[in-house]
């Protein structure tokens, strides 16, 4: 390894509720039995990983974004700011300039093009980043404030925080948001390996195909974990074979797993078979990632 950064394993899925958080938390806790590891919850709209750990809060900071602030005495009411804002986040209503922070994309256009420097950029809180520690497990999550609409800048800041603080670790696990829209792109675009978790059902297959297309657009190496294997049919397996996507593990369908999950318990600690699957998944990810140690 030339640069000292952890192997980033991102866990994603086209659809919500397929077991993303379950896999992320179990995998991270399993790794932590042997070495220090960081788990980052990038699902900033619905961070749920933290529900599975009761750790000690070691650090907290607000997340910020940059927005323009009207400096009234300097303003000549030329109207340029309103004209150049493609997001309608700056309005000129008579003798007032209104800035709508939630609509602002922090592009700096109005601020830098203002002829009288009447819209300097200032920072505004958008949420909170928290860092917990449970023995070997470091856990980082960001939570968007309610009403805040843009997840992407917060995801990017959270990744940056982890980079700055955990460069010395060997492995980072990222719990990503569901879907195929911008937040997933931001969360997975520099991952060393992406695990797509799905269910062997028609909904699962349909959403998996979308997730695969997304990861191919990003040119990320990936593998599939089939959750609740045994229900539904084999279409997901056949699809993966046809598309040459490795299946890393099949987690069996079991009511016991559903029950453990529902009480917020880690599954592998109770079911040895799952522990073996985690070991197989981890080995594969590390081998397939850059600089991975077999």
């Amino acid at each position, binding site marked *: 390894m030339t640069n000292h950064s952890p192997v980033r394993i991102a866990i994603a899925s*086209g*659809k*919500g*509720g*397929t077991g993303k*958080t379950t896999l992320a938390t179990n995998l991270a806790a399993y790794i932590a039995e042997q070495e220090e590891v960081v788990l980052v919850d990038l699902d900033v*709209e*619905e961070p*749920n990983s933290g*529900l*599975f750990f009761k750790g000690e809060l070691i650090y907290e900071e607000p997340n910020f974004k940059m927005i323009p602030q009207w400096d009234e005495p300097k303003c000549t009411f030329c109207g340029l700011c309103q004209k*150049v804002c*493609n*997001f309608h986040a700056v309005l000129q209503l008579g003798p007032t300039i209104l800035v709508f922070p939630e609509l602002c*994309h*922090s*592009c*700096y*256009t109005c601020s*830098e*093009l203002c002829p009288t420097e009447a819209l300097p950029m200032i920072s505004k809180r958008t949420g909170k980043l928290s860092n917990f520690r449970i023995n070997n497990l470091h856990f980082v999550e960001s939570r968007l404030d*309610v009403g805040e*609409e843009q*997840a992407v800048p917060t995801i990017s800041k959270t990744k940056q925080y982890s980079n700055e603080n955990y460069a010395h670790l060997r492995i980072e696990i990222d719990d990503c948001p*569901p*879907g*195929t*829209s*911008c937040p997933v*792109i931001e969360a997975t*675009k520099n991952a060393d390996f992406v695990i797509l978790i799905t269910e062997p*059902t*028609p*909904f699962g297959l*349909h*959403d998996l195909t*979308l997730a695969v*297309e*997304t990861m191919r*657009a*990003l040119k990320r190496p990936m593998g599939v974990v089939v959750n609740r294997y045994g*229900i*539904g*049919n084999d279409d997901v397996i056949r699809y993966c074979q046809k598309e040459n996507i490795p299946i890393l593990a099949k987690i069996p*369908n079991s*009511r016991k797993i*559903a*029950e453990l*999950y*529902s*009480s*917020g318990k880690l599954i592998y600690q109770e079911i040895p078979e799952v522990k073996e699957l985690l070991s197989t998944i981890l080995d594969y990810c590390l081998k397939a990632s850059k600089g991975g140690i077999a």
Partner: protein
Amino acid sequence: MKEIVIISGKGGTGKTSITASFAVLGGNNVVVADCDVDAADMHLLMQPDFDFSEDFYSGELATIDINSCIRCNKCAQVCRFGAISIRNMQYVIDPLSCEGCGYCARVCPTEAITNKNRLAGKWYISNIKTGSIMVHARLGIGADNSGKLVAKVKNEARDIAFEERKDIILVDGSPGVGCPVVSSLSGANFVVLVTEPSVSGLHDLKRVYELVKKFNIKAACIINKSDVNPKKRDEIVGFLAEENIVHLADLPYDENFTRAMTQGQTIVEYDKNRIKPLLTASWERIKQLVIT
């Protein structure tokens, strides 16, 4: 005309299976709108014919005309999103990074950059197996799920329901608590919350209900897989009582949901003995509650 929205906060609770069941029970009188556009699945159960389709544009995307570009680098300097880079001696824009703010176009001395409308997906009107109509959509990869496509799907469904004199619009809502679910709820008459008795299920139910309260919409709840964790189920029932949310039904953990899905059927078509009576009673109750 009444608009009923089904939401869940968390994914994987059975929201779409239940919505599709209500669509079947409601039959010809119900216009369906699939607003879960980032992972639209309901069409897999409704046999849509994709009768009408249209491209959907949202936001803007910068494009460079390399013939006019003098490689002054001004665009790359002002871009805050790292979307402009040099590849093979030419300036290129990465569409997945470009936010469409237009700053680059404004500073380009030769007007080589223009902002174009961004293709963000497709939307459809279909005839479905219930004899009614469904409006649905597919968001493009890396598109911004701003809620605009959700709003489009809902408005088309409203127009169709109005013109065809249908009584009910049934909306499969978006997950989460962000813009898309806000668009799903806007203008609704009634909300059905679908949850499951798990730590995350209850957590997300509470979060999404905060939003429902802001809209001041009457709500009811179905607890799916209720027997998986009786203690959590009781906790949810307690929450519903506290918030005055109608508790419609407890559905047992049942793999017939998946078996039905693999046949392209809804659970009420597949399992007529165990689940269908429960969902039929829920649907009748919802209709009563919506009218009063």
